């Protein structure tokens, strides 16, 4: 593996003078800000490869920034990026924040020969930091790869027998673990030459009976066996036994693609056997939930001061080495002054160093139900330490909280005791008011409210008609007072009929005379003319001028003639009665005729 260091800390040592100068220079650099470790480093997993293979470039950016800057890959040279992945980690220790971004790039060479990955830069706060270029050797496809230190062009490579060019192995670092204890399963690929026709395909075993997590970034190193130098690639998987007893891990396989003339090569490892021990019963804490490893715990609340019945966020963090993702939440202590709500968990794991480490954080909302100085009691967590072979129980510190009364609640009442000293009534707790007794009658609900019913809106219309009627009546009254012709017209029929009604019990001559008064009075009122001096001829002329229908005028003439006969000649009671009847009918007909005429 080749490490590239930045220009500003490169050192050389040829002569004593130069060495002394360097010592002096380094002493200056160590006291200056830029003497700190460079924020960017780059390395590759190999420095020799064939044109068919890929090299993994790992760029690490470290600093105290909130947002980790992206490295600049503008000077990759004769490589293209096939794939990339990123992992970031932010830690705060003693208030000092450290951020680290690890960028993995899988690079494919474009040409054979000596090629260079150029400087990789990163811009932090306007200052550019760069790595050294990295030199690599790219051979033709199928060329055996040998580490440069082992390469001797003057010596023939040893002859490889079938099965010696590629082979695989599998092993675990601890074949006798405790239940839940982490072990590392390592799959090793030994290759004496490059893969001629593409990358091999690794199929891991099913890992039944284990909780597994593959550890990224395979390791590469050369290894000599029987005079042959192999490039060894190790793919590691973290395993956590989930069952007791003897567990056999099935073989892992690797398929190396062949060509048109040669078939694929399938390689398999031997099965690996693991004997899983149970955890000791002696000393097992009551709250033990199966955690195995080494852990620490801490807890905090989102604020040290809160208003009663307002929520706080309780954050419990377990950090350490072990199966972080399956850690159960610690049981919270019983606290009647607090209400707890459902929790959420977050996991941050790192397996880059071959061990599963990280943090598991549990967050939940908690609500204080009483004002005053409260304490959130310690939270315990138990685990089994396989290294020490003992159970450990760790606890958080008690968390003091100041819970303020709610100002929106009514002010507490005060009472005056017999010594006339004013005292505040202390509200010990809040509760709902008690239920009510059964009312005298229970309301059976209706689907519609009053405003949704038609009857309600009909009730709004009735007063409108009332107001309109009053307005019309008032207008009529005013006209009756101001317009005599209208008044005479309106009362003409009523007065005429009154005269006729009064004449019912009179004698025959009086009835005829009354009919005459009624008819003439009616017509003079309708024509708005005085009754006195009105002759039959003059009346007929006025009626014709008023465009009354001829048949009505003829009936009037005839009736007036009969009335004159009745007034001045003997007349029977029957004839007088018929004159009254005819007069009444004529007035009714005339009323309708005048009414129609008025409308026209």
């Amino acid at each position, binding site marked *: 593996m080749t490490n590239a260091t930045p220009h500003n800390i490169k050192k050389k040592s040829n002569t004593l003078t130069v060495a002394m100068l360097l010592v002096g220079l380094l002493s200056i650099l160590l006291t200056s800000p830029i003497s700190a470790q460079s924020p960017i480093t780059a390395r590759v997993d190999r420095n020799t490869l064939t044109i068919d293979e890929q090299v993994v470039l790992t760029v690490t950016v470290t600093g105290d920034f909130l947002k980790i800057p992206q490295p600049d890959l503008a000077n990759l040279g004769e490589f293209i990026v096939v794939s990339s992945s990123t992992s970031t980690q932010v830690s705060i220790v003693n208030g000092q924040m450290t951020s680290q971004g690890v960028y993995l790039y899988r690079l494919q060479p474009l040409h054979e020969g000596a090629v260079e990955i150029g400087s990789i830069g990163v811009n932090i706060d306007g200052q550019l930091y760069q790595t050294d270029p990295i030199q690599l050797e790219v051979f033709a496809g199928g060329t055996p790869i040998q580490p440069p230190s082992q390469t001797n062009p003057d010596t023939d490579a040893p002859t490889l027998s079938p099965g010696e060019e590629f082979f695989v192995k599998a092993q675990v670092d601890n074949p006798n673990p405790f239940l839940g204890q982490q072990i590392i399963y390592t799959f090793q690929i030994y290759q004496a030459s490059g893969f001629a026709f593409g990358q091999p395909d690794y199929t891991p075993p099913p890992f039944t009976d284990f909780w597994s997590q593959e550890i990224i970034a395979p390791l590469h190193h050369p290894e000599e066996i029987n005079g042959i130098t192999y490039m060894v690639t190790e793919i590691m998987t973290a395993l956590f036994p989930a069952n007791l007893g003897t567990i056999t891990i099935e073989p892992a396989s690797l398929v190396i693609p062949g060509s048109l003339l040669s078939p694929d090569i399938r390689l398999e490892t031997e099965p690996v056997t693991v004997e899983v021990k149970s955890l000791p019963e002696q000393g097992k804490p009551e709250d033990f939930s199966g955690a195995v490893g080494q852990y620490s715990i801490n807890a905090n609340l989102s604020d040290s001061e809160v208003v009663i019945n307002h929520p706080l966020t309780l954050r419990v963090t377990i950090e350490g080495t072990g199966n972080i993702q399956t850690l159960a939440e610690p049981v919270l202590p019983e606290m009647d002054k607090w209400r707890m709500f*459902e929790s959420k968990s977050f996991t941050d794991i790192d397996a880059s160093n071959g061990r599963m480490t990280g943090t598991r954080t549990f967050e939940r909302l908690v*609500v204080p139900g009483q004002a005053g100085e409260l304490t959130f009691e310690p939270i315990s967590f138990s685990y089994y330490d396989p290294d020490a072979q003992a159970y450990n129980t760790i606890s958080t510190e008690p968390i003091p909280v100041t819970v303020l009364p709610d100002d929106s609640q009514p002010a507490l009442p005060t009472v005056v005791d017999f010594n006339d000293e004013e005292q505040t009534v202390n509200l010990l707790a809040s509760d*709902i*008011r008690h239920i009510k007794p*059964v009312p005298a009658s229970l309301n059976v609900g209706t689907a519609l409210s*009053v405003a949704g019913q038609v009857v309600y809106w009909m009730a709004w219309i009735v007063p409108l008609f009332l107001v309109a009627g009053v307005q019309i009546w008032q207008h009529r009254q005013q006209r009756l007072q101001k317009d005599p012709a209208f008044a005479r017209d309106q009362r003409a029929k009523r007065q005429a009929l009154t005269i006729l009604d009064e004449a019912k019990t009179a004698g025959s001559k009086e009835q005829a005379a009354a009919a005459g008064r009624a008819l003439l009075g009616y017509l003079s009122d309708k024509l708005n003319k005085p009754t006195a001096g009105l002759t039959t001829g003059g009346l007929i002329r006025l009626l014709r001028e008023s465009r009354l229908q001829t048949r009505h005028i003829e009936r009037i003439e005839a009736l007036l003639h009969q009335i004159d006969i009745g007034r001045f000649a003997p007349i029977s009671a029957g004839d007088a009665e018929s004159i009254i009847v005819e007069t009444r009918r004529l007035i009714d007909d005339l009323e309708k005729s005048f009414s129609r005429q008025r409308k026209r």
Partner: protein
Amino acid sequence: MMGLLVTVSAVSAQAVSPTEAMTAGNQSYEAGNYAQAVEIYETMVAAGIQDSTLYYNLGNAYFKQGQLGKAILNYRRAYRLDPRDVDNNVNLALARSQALDKLDTANDGAVTNFVKAAEDWLTLDEASMLALGLWLLLCGLAIVAILLPRFRQVSLWAMAVVGLFLIVGLISIANRLYNDYAYPPAVVVAEQVSVMSGPGGADQYVVEFDLHTGAEVTQLESHDNWRRVSLPGHDFQGWISADALELVNPN
């Protein structure tokens, strides 16, 4: 008097009057058997009894059971029927203070606040009858103005004042009727519910935020088994499962 089939125990059921049923519910509550009290009160509600005292007692029983969302829902139903019940308002305020989601409504301006104040004092039916009364008074003043010219000036001024109150009252009633129909208020009764960006699960949409039991929301629309809700006074809105909330107006 209508009869109710109230299951008092697991093995016996008998038809009783609403008054007897509520007495049994109250007795269960007094004995600390809140679950049975809830069962009896809910039976009465299901039978069509909509009484503010019934909803109040039901809210209390749910509160004692720790079901904050159901408690707030029933206190609000009681509030609809009797907004001047001090006990109900105190319990509603206490239950709201224990809800996790503090949804403070924004200041909406003088007119809106006046309308809200009216809503806090009168039920919809009371406001409707008051508006009808104002209308009758307005018409009466109009008749006085027509028939009695010497009181015409006074009547017209009185009509202007009454008319102003009537207009505000009608706006308030229209607003309440419209909101009850178009944007009915609802309460989250699930312990916790995720508000999605669309009417579907997490496989289709993203979780925009979470609501907890007792959160008071406004329902905007329905789509299958999903309800689109908004938070009063906020721009937040999204979709939640229909069984996670209940409308305040049970009709």
